[in-house]
């Protein structure tokens, strides 16, 4: 198949589908009440487990274990964020335990819309309903491809990239800031900050808008903890629900 075939085939979409997509979206009934109840439970759990979560960083990267390399790209630049394969030898292609960020602000939730977990990934989307905090937490096996590469980012040409370290509790996480030339990258004019770390078995990624405060990011990362049943937090092998 030629790469442009699908682009052209989209013109064959049914007229009624296209027209329906132009209708004003139905009002969503947010699960706010449920979210607040869950938030309350999570905050209680967080206060109980905060000390236990501290060990989470025991093998976090020291600025070398997780690194970024350019691998070229068709329309912009593609980067692989790789984990040192020697250190990842204990990992395999599947997740055996799941981690969840417990941090929550008032009237916010790790939402069902967009989040999903499976045997090889765990994605959780933070939503504070129109306020300025957007964040996504990812968990992957540290070794999920043959070459140990864990995650790839495709960055449109013109995006300004900077690679730094993000300090948290004496550890340094790989930090990539992406500032689009216009409103290109993921349509977000604010730019994106992506933080990477690992415990040797899992690759963790926290992606957030650039204007999210560093203290908030630290709180989110500190709140990450292992859970016994991931399906209590995010849909497991099931289509995420974006509407009530």
């Amino acid at each position, binding site marked *: 198949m030629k790469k*442009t075939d699908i682009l052209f085939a989209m013109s064959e979409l049914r007229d009624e589908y296209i027209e329906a*997509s132009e209708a004003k979206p139905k009002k969503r009934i947010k699960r706010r009440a449920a979210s607040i109840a869950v938030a309350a439970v999570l905050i209680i759990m967080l206060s109980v487990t905060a000390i236990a979560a501290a060990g989470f960083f025991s093998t976090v990267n020291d600025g070398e274990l997780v690194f970024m390399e350019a691998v070229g790209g068709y329309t912009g630049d593609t980067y692989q964020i790789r984990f040192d394969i020697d250190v990842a030898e204990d990992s395999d292609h599947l997740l055996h335990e799941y981690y969840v960020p417990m941090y929550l602000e008032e009237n916010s939730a790790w939402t069902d819309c967009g989040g999903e977990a499976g045997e090889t990934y765990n994605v959780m989307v933070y939503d504070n309903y129109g306020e300025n905090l957007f964040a996504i937490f990812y968990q992957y096996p540290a070794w999920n491809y043959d070459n140990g590469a864990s995650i790839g980012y495709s960055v449109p*040409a013109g995006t300004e990239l900077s690679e730094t370290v993000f300090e948290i509790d004496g550890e340094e996480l790989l930090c990539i800031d992406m500032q689009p030339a216009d409103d290109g990258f*993921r349509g977000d004019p604010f730019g994106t900050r992506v933080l990477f770390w690992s415990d040797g078995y899992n690759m963790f990624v926290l992606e957030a808008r650039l204007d999210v405060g560093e203290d908030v990011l630290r709180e989110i990362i500190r709140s990450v903890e292992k859970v016994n049943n991931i399906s209590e937090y995010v849909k497991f092998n099931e289509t995420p629900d974006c509407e009530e």
Partner: protein
Amino acid sequence: MRDEEIIDLYFERNELALSETEKKYKGYCFSVAENILGDRQDAEECVNSALLGAWNSIPPNRPENLKMFVAKTARNIALNKLKAKLTQKRGGNEVFAVFEELSELASEDTESDFEAKELGESINRFAGELKERERNIFIRRYFFMESPGEIGERYKISPNSVSVILHRLRKKLKKHLEKEGFDV
């Protein structure tokens, strides 16, 4: 003027058909083409070509939906213009991003032996199986080429949530196409 009346004018070879179509649907077709090309002048040319295309193909065609007929023609003309831009790496970031995303579905950039229509029908079956909201997000991105920011604004979700939903939909589409025998 109602679409049926405009189509009758095409059948009568009355040039008023063109001005009535332009009056009614030029703006819509322009936004479809401009989203793809990111250039007003190129978009304008596409709309003019789409109107000419309508004049040349009606009759014998009698479209059930004139708006979609000219919009899809404009989209295809814009995509053909875009092909050249892609090889020269020129054009709007959003189109590059969409192209890059859809490229994930084609493992090799090779000539294929299926008709574009067959692929289109398969994509329609895929779209038909989606929940309404997912389908709409899919169409806003891959037909209209809107950015995740624009889509997020429409559905009151963050651009990042849109990106995650689209990522999941592409994975599903790839599985669907494989199942239907396409070489992806």
